[in-house]
């Protein structure tokens, strides 16, 4: 067991009924590293990400978070999840709560922080995504980019050790993508461990320490961004990049 890794994925399989989505994934992410997972839709990259905090139940294989086996049936999954922030494609902000409450509710109910502590931490994370001024608004009054930044703040408010990003810019209008990627780049520079499923090749090239290309439920190729994106060894990677970059 490699305790030096933040995330260790060993022999991971996941099937939905007869459909094999993940067919043996082995992947390690070192602390403070940013790993971008790319691949066509249906290649299993989102499922892989969702297995890491067990939003999807792996069919077989093991996942270790800081050496702790989250796939162990006796594992306190809720406890481990507080250390793994997750941001979704569809934001999934709590629509009945205002922005500030969105970032404080879990601090109070899960971490047991007092209202004052939670508000203080909440305002701090809203500040850092540039939305402290919108604390009293309801999510539906914000633009998509702002909602996604609040969603990042909501995850950060729990002081996670690592963050998972599931195609977080895919539902955004093109002009709103930049502000979200900007926040993510800031996080990366501060040394947050990040696993990022994305279609943003520019972001992967600039920010990732490692790029993982997935195809048909397996890791097809991985390496530094310049190598995988610039000079891919695998034919399948080359074909995928050609399709993505053509337009």
């Amino acid at each position, binding site marked *: 067991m490699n305790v030096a890794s933040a995330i260790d994925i060993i022999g991971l399989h996941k099937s939905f009924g007869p459909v094999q989505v993940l067919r043996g994934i082995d992947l390690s992410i070192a602390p403070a590293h940013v790993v971008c997972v790319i691949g066509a839709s249906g290649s299993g990259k989102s499922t892989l990400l969702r297995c890491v*905090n067990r*939003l999807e139940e792996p069919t077989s294989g093991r996942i270790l978070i800081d050496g702790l086996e989250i796939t162990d049936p006796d594992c306190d999954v*809720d*406890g481990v*999840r*507080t250390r*793994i*922030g*997750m941001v*979704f494609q*569809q934001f*999934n*902000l*709590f*629509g*009945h709560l*205002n922005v500030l409450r969105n970032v404080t*509710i*879990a601090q109070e*109910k*899960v*971490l047991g922080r007092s209202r004052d502590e939670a508000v203080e931490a909440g305002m701090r994370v809203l500040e850092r995504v540039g939305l402290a001024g919108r604390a009293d608004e*309801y999510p*539906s009054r914000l633009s998509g980019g702002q909602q996604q930044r609040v*969603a990042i703040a*909501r*995850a950060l408010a*729990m002081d996670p050790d690592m963050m998972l990003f599931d195609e977080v810019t895919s539902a955004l209008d093109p002009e709103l993508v930049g502000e979200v990627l900007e926040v993510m780049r800031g996080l990366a520079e501060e040394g947050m461990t990040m696993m990022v499923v994305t279609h943003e090749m520019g972001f992967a090239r600039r920010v990732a320490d490692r790029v993982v290309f997935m195809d048909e439920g397996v890791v097809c190729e991985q390496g530094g961004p310049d190598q995988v994106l610039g000079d891919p060894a695998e034919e399948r990677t080359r074909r995928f990049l050609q399709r993505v970059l053509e337009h």
Partner: protein
Amino acid sequence: MTSAEQAGGSAVLQPRTGRRRSPRQRAQRVRVVSYALGAAVLAALVLVPDWPRIQRNFLDGGVFADQFPKIVTIAARNTVVYTVLSFTGGLVLGLTMALLRLSTIRPYRWFAAVYIEIFRGLPALLTISLIGFAIPIALGVGFPVVLGVETGGIIALSLVAGAYMAETIRAGIEAVPRGQMEAARSLGMPYGQAMRSIVIPQAFRIIIPPLTNELVLLLKDTALLSILGVTVTSKELTKFARDGVNQNFNGTPIVAAGLLYLAITIPLTRLVAQLEKRNRRSR
């Protein structure tokens, strides 16, 4: 434009339907006919009935005044109390059953499904008889009367209301996007916590209209409780009005009771509509 001009213009663009009147002219004709019909019906309503007789039998000022204050202090009050009690009971039961119905444990789902099918399928009157008469007789014990309320009847109405509300609440919970639960779980909230703080509050916002509907139906169903036999102080509006009719040989108490039902339901539905409008802003 006259029809002559139109006919001249149509030399260029021949209408293919062969109708002589334009759509505007036809619409006008329909309007004239429907107004005339409406006026005729109204005239018949005013002229045909024997108004003095109707007034004697349904709007007798003396009988009307006699109903007060008891029709309010006893009858309307009881109707509201029975409604609030059985709605509360139904809500608790309905929420419980909805959660059991959504459980991953199969016997729980079956249990809730059986409950819902039985009490939604039986007439409320039958359920009230079953709980209010049959069970006390079979078990040799009566339901206690608490605060002048026949608890057996309230339990029966709660069971019926719970069955309907269970399905409404379940639909509401299922209408909350799955991502809400996932986001809450990803922050480390256990399932129950996420349900309580995130999913159920949003579900209730969605189902306010059908729940209001259920409340109004229940208000009217409290009239059925009178089959359990009532004392002078436990009469609700309908029973009170029917007894008033028998005592006075006059229909005025029914009108009075009807007005009171509306005096409860109309402000209630208005209030809920307001509430809903306010909620929509925070969605």
